[in-house]
């Protein structure tokens, strides 16, 4: 049970020997840029296959598979639900609006109703071998839900911006009394060979891109009534009519969460299982694209517990009895204080301590800068044929 517990916050990568770990660490932390086990460049992602709209019973769905055989399916379902307003909030907001009406002749009376509620988006993640209340699925779903409900677009100053005012939460509002509830169900089909965050995040992004909601026929505060023609349905995230290639006006896009690790002074994107096992720092960075600024928006950062802290240390020759390098004094020192031995080159030590601020700044710069990895990923996902 404890092994399970440990594996839940890190990934299951405890079966690499200290010698292998040390080899990996050395090659990934080379000063002239890392040499990755699969020959990728530091910012290159693993090749993947993706398709959308695979499940006819959902509002939107996607499947992404990596070349190593890990696959994930995401289905998005939407339901209409009555908005419950807490009694005291209702009273207060009514009083507020009355006051507003009195103040500026009913100018901004409806403004309060355009906000959605974060709990309208529900996300559940199923990973084989984990219970649904284990730490890993809970952490992953919170990590991916947080930027989704957090992203708030600018207040409608451009085409397409109007619909997405208030972000995804605002888009889910039908009128004051009704709203959409969005269920995002993530299913990892294979064993989690590497930390599954990039896979799940890319799949969720694609599924949300392909999500359609039925066209609303009723107006204003009427009970909602929808067009039953599925062809008339509207995308949850509005798409530009003249094809995705035209990017003069940027569209609001669902957030995407990137997994970034640092090894030594190097920053590596989309780590596979071996690379994440020796990482000094693991960061999950969520970014999105907005209509009112041309850059990327940072939505959330979380540190992920690097699995390198759980590995077994290697023993250097000078301390090892079997290699005749050990003296009685060294052995004594090792007995009383096994961990103060300084770093010996080529001998693996589990990582300790945290991350410097300048390393974090460097990682974020690589994600957020113009033409950086974040833009590249969003562009690549845009290229996937949707619909």
């Amino acid at each position: 049970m404890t092994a399970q517990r440990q594996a839940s916050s890190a990934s299951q990568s405890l079966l690499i020997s200290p010698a292998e770990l040390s080899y990996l660490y050395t090659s990934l932390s080379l000063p002239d840029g890392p040499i990755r086990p699969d020959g990728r460049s530091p910012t290159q992602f693993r090749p993947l296959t993706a398709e959308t709209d695979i499940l006819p019973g959902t509002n939107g769905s996607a499947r992404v598979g990596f070349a190593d055989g890990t696959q994930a399916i995401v289905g998005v379902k939407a339901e209409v639900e009555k908005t419950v307003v807490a009694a005291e909030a209702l009273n207060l907001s009514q009083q507020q609006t009355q006051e507003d009406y009195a103040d500026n002749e009913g100018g901004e009376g409806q403004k309060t109703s355009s906000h959605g509620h974060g709990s309208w988006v529900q996300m559940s993640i199923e990973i084989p071998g984990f219970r649904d209340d284990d730490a890993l699925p809970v952490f992953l779903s919170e990590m991916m839900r947080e930027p989704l409900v957090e992203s708030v677009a600018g207040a409608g100053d451009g085409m397409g911006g109007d619909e997405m005012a208030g972000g995804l939460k605002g888009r889910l509002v039908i009128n004051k009394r009704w709203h959409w509830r969005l269920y995002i169900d993530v299913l990892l089909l294979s064993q989690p060979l590497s930390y599954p965050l990039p896979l799940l995040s890319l799949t969720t992004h694609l599924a949300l891109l392909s999500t359609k909601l039925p066209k609303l026929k009723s107006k204003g505060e009427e009970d909602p009534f929808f067009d039953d023609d599925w062809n008339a349905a509207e995308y949850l995230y509005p798409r530009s009519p003249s094809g995705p290639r035209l990017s003069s006006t940027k569209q609001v896009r669902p957030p995407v969460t990137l997994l970034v690790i640092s090894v030594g002074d190097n920053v590596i994107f989309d780590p596979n299982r071996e690379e994440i096992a020796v990482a000094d720092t693991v960061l999950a960075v969520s970014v999105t694209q907005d209509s009112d600024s041309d850059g990327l928006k940072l939505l959330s950062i979380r540190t992920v517990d690097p699995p390198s802290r759980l590995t077994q240390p290697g023993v250097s020759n000078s301390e090892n009895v079997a290699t005749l390098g050990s003296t009685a004094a060294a052995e004594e020192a090792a007995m009383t204080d096994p961990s103060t031995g300084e770093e010996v080159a080529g001998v693996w030590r589990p990582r300790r301590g945290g991350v410097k601020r300048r390393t974090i700044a460097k990682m974020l710069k690589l994600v957020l800068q113009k033409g950086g990895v974040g833009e590249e990923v969003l562009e690549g996902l845009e290229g996937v044929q949707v619909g």
Partner: protein
Amino acid sequence: MTDRRRINGPPSGTRPAVFASSLKSASSISTGRPRRQRQPDELRKIFLKTGLIPSASGSAYLEFEPSASLAAARSNPQSLIPPSSALKLACTVHGPKPLPRSASFSPNVVLTTHVKYAPFAARQRKGHIRDASERDLGVHLETALRGVIVAERWPKSGLDITITILEAEDDRWWGDAPDSHDAPWGMMNVLAGCITAASAAIADARIDCLDLVAGGVAAIVSDESAEGETSTPKLMLDTDPAEHKSILSACVVAYMPSRDEITELWLKGDHSKASLGTTDQSLNHESLIDGAVNAARGAHTVLAEAVKESAERFAGLSTGANTV
């Protein structure tokens, strides 16, 4: 998952009624929001004491100073609803202790963190079973502490850290509609408190660490001024979510001052509009992280005092035992 073994109260507690006659006017509600009386870079006072739970190998109790508005409301009550709440939590450390025989070999100490809100901790009642947000806090705390503890000194042992939150920070002012800003901002203050208290309790249990890790929070808030307009966004340290109309973005760090390293970073929120509106370039994620680090530095001074007190008590105990 609902708790079926106990007879639970209503899932959402009932609130005392606010009678219209007790309110002077509707505007008194909007001005009823507690105001921040501190400077932007001034922290709340922290009460931190170790060794309160004798049966645990280490323990700590942490309390934030209640805001001035709460004290004023207690002396001169206007309403039955307290205007704000302040964090109170207790942390216990059990171990290092041998792992059960059935457990597989571990070269490092197996750290287990468990964060639980007391059912009465927040305005909304919490169940007896940990929900997703509490598990999430537990994972954050584990990440923060695992980087600090020198784990290979206790192979084959376990270390359990349990935190009970007796009173939690509010996520928003109670008078705000729940959809005004519904993100759980209070959780971030709770996490910072958990990190600081757990660090003190681990030191109290005499477990080897690289440094005393302290938690700190900073946020970019856009406050409403006296005229009811929202002013330009500002960076503030140790924000009480009840005191602010809208929090754009907030950040928690677990920070080790002597190594200048961060073991846990949790930043969320969209602050792009804050830097758009003004020419002030300081409202970006880097200044937010720096602000949180400064807040953690402040908490570290309190932490160092509490640990010193714990060490003195320990020294006094051992010399006392020798003389008798």
